[in-house]
């Protein structure tokens, strides 16, 4: 429901224009702010697809090449997190504004400059868990979809957790591809991966206790790890 309503705001340009003007009106006291907003909107239009009123995958790709970041780079995902983008591969105007305003960037070069700061922000422990769960939800493209398949989960894991927990992620991906019990990963299991990486000594796993409330998939993983080690 929410997703469709945002799509509506994206497609109905008139509504957008009026809301934009009301924003203008409210922030009329600060000319600089309104100027910034204008430039943000302007930048949006540069990438947006005229008919849908959204930045579609194509637009994102050209945006990526402009900021000189690969579109599969984790930083794009971080940007999407900052925008609170709902739908994979698309940015609505509202999301675009939210993200860019927060970054205080209204041009390609400013966005480029803001990226390292964004990385720092995301990797702060207080934000990372939110970003991490966002990454999972961002991958749920179908309505009522609650799980993502192992293949995508592995890629995502590599993307969002790889730079912090390389050895764990490598092993986990190896295991996920090896096992046949699970074909999909749900949010609960996904979140537990992060918790696992944060809390469990690796590779000794000596503080892992299968009597605690770890999901079964991690019990199996640990068992597999012990088997591999011995």
């Amino acid at each position, binding site marked *: 429901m929410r997703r469709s309503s945002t799509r509506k705001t994206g497609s109905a340009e008139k509504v957008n224009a009026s809301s934009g003007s009301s924003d203008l009106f409210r922030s009329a006291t600060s000319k600089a702010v309104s100027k910034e907003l204008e430039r943000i909107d302007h930048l949006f239009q540069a990438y947006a697809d005229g008919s849908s009123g959204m930045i579609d995958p194509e637009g994102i790709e050209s945006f990526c090449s402009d900021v000189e970041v690969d579109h599969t780079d984790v930083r794009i995902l971080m940007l999407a997190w900052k925008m609170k983008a709902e739908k994979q591969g698309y940015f609505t105007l509202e999301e675009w504004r939210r993200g860019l305003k927060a970054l205080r960037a209204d041009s390609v070069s400013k966005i480029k400059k803001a990226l390292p700061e964004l990385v720092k922000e995301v990797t702060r422990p207080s934000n990372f868990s939110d970003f991490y769960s966002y990454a999972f939800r961002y991958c749920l493209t179908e309505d009522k979809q*609650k799980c993502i398949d192992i293949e995508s989960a592995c890629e995502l894991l590599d993307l969002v957790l790889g730079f912090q927990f390389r050895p764990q992620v490598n092993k986990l991906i190896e295991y996920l591809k090896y096992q046949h019990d699970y074909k999909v990963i*749900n*949010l*609960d*299991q996904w*979140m*537990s991966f992060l*918790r696992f990486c944060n*809390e469990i000594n690796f590779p000794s796993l000596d503080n892992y206790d299968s*009597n*605690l*409330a*770890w*999901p*079964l998939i991690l*019990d199996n993983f640990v068992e597999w790890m012990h088997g591999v080690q011995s």
Partner: protein
Amino acid sequence: MVLHKYGEKLYSGLVTTMTWHLKEIAKSIEAAQGGLFLEELNRKWGDHNKALQMIRDILMYMDRTFVPSNRKTPVHELGLNLWRDNIIHSHKIQTRLLDTLLDLIHRERTGEVINRGLMRNITKMLMDLGSSVYQEDFERPFLEVSASFYSGESQQFIECCDCGDYLKKAERRLNEEMERVSHYLDAKSEAKITSVVEKEMIANHMQRLVHMENSGLVNMLVDDKYEDLSRMYNLFRRVPEGLSTIRDVMTSHLRETGKQLVSDPERLRDPVDFVQRLLDMKDKHDKIISIAFNNDKTFQNALNSSFEYFINLNNRSPEFISLYVDDKLRKGLKGVTEEDVEVVLDKVMMLFRYLQEKDVFEKYYKQHLAKRLLSGKTVSDDAERSMIVKLKTECGYQFTSKLEGMFTDMRTSQDTMQGFYASQYSETGDGPTLAVQVLTTGSWPTQPSAPCNLPAEILGVCEKFRAYYLGTHTGRRLTWQTNMGTADIKATFGKGQKHELNVSTYQMCVLMLFNSADRLSYKEIEQATEIPAADLKRCLQSLACVKGKNVLRKEPMSKDIAEDDAFYFNDKFTSKFIKVKIGTVVAQKESEPEKHETRQRVEEDRKPQIEAAIVRIMKSRRVLDHNSIVTEVTTQLQSRFLPNPVVIKKRIESLIEREFLERDKADRKLYRYLA
């Protein structure tokens, strides 16, 4: 003299005189030779006592006044003390007395008869001199000597006797010692001397006795040696760890034999025999415990836990126990009195109690009961009901509600059929008679099956019934379960002999085809009846390949049915019986794939039960750690099955996914209930 303040003089005079006198006596006792020694001692002791009595009487005044005020020992006691010091503790007598006593006891132990009266007097004397004298001068060495005697003897016995004989000897020794105490020792010695015998003869050899080759506890159990077992129980009971030793050996023996029994592939072929063996084993050991082990509760528990252990080692036990009941209720209980039926069923219930997977039993029981009811094979309705009542008291209403539903269906079906024929009275000429059992979906273990094509004659009656039934019960749906029915058909063979064939619905469909044809190919039959291939093959096999029941002839003649076989009406069929029952070739025991399927169904059925238990628990507790949930779920479901912790974990995860529960943000162990 006391009055004249000569008390002191009198008293010391008494001491010297008596001492001198006793030294004389000592000499005369010492002089006594051999056996006369004790007699002399005894006689002198008697004299001394008498003398002492008189002296006390004479000196009574001194005893009353002088002695207490001067804190002297009273005369009588003084006399005893002097006797002790001068006679008993006299250097020459002390050891000799002890040796003589011990020697006599030893002689008695080895079978000689001794003068018990004399012994009693002497020990009495020692007691009179004070219990410390008795203990120091006799009892302690006596116990020491006894210990070494029995240690030696038990060593000797254990080398040359088997367990039963050894126990007999030990028992006899123990009784002898108790008798000895009652005859000539102080009563307080009994506990001490028996504990010496117990320690030397039993405690020290317990392990060896129990494990003795060819005659140990295991052999006694196997051979039902009630007397030996009872003796062992009574003797071992006296020593610490004794009973637990017996119990442990019995338990491991039970587990071992039980394990062998349930894992022997030979035994798995015949489920009825399998269960019968279990029951026999239980009976045998129940009897041992009641006869030989004093109905000891701890032994009963050990027996129960052993059975529980090994019955559940074999995951087919629930199926087999149900098959056993099936067998009994089908035919095994014919001509047996009601009480005996109860006994058998009670025994089965006892095995049932050991089962961890009671839900699996329920599944099979339902299947078997359905077959019994539908084929009208059950021997006694009362027995059926009694079994269900037992299950109900054991596991509650839920467990049996469906089983009871099946009975209700059978009853209502009868009424319905009566109503049906009453209403159709005029129209049913000599057409086939139909008996319909209307089964409630859900109560019966029905498998959805494609209905086969019924012969036109039958179809007509079926339609009439459908119209009648739906007329009286609007809003219901009827589907025909042709795979569960039976039919009686009359057939005339070659020489004009008539037989009544009792067949299944499928077989009936096939046979009816031969009313209009003599030869039919497999394909033709399959097309005409639309019976599922596997069932059709089985059904044709039973019609054409079983000797004495081959109402059809098959070409080529072989045991198995092939797609291109042809079938003929066998007009050469003969049978001694007018009524011929043609059973379908069915495996009574489940085949591997069937077993697998049942297993899966059971697992599926368990999921909601486990989830319900988790939700119930979490609803009342709100927050709970993982281990506690697992424990509580296990206890809640124990009466039906033993849930696997991994499965419980899976269910928890599923509930988290469906947002009934969540993990606690901070504490790894905890789950929270989401209302």
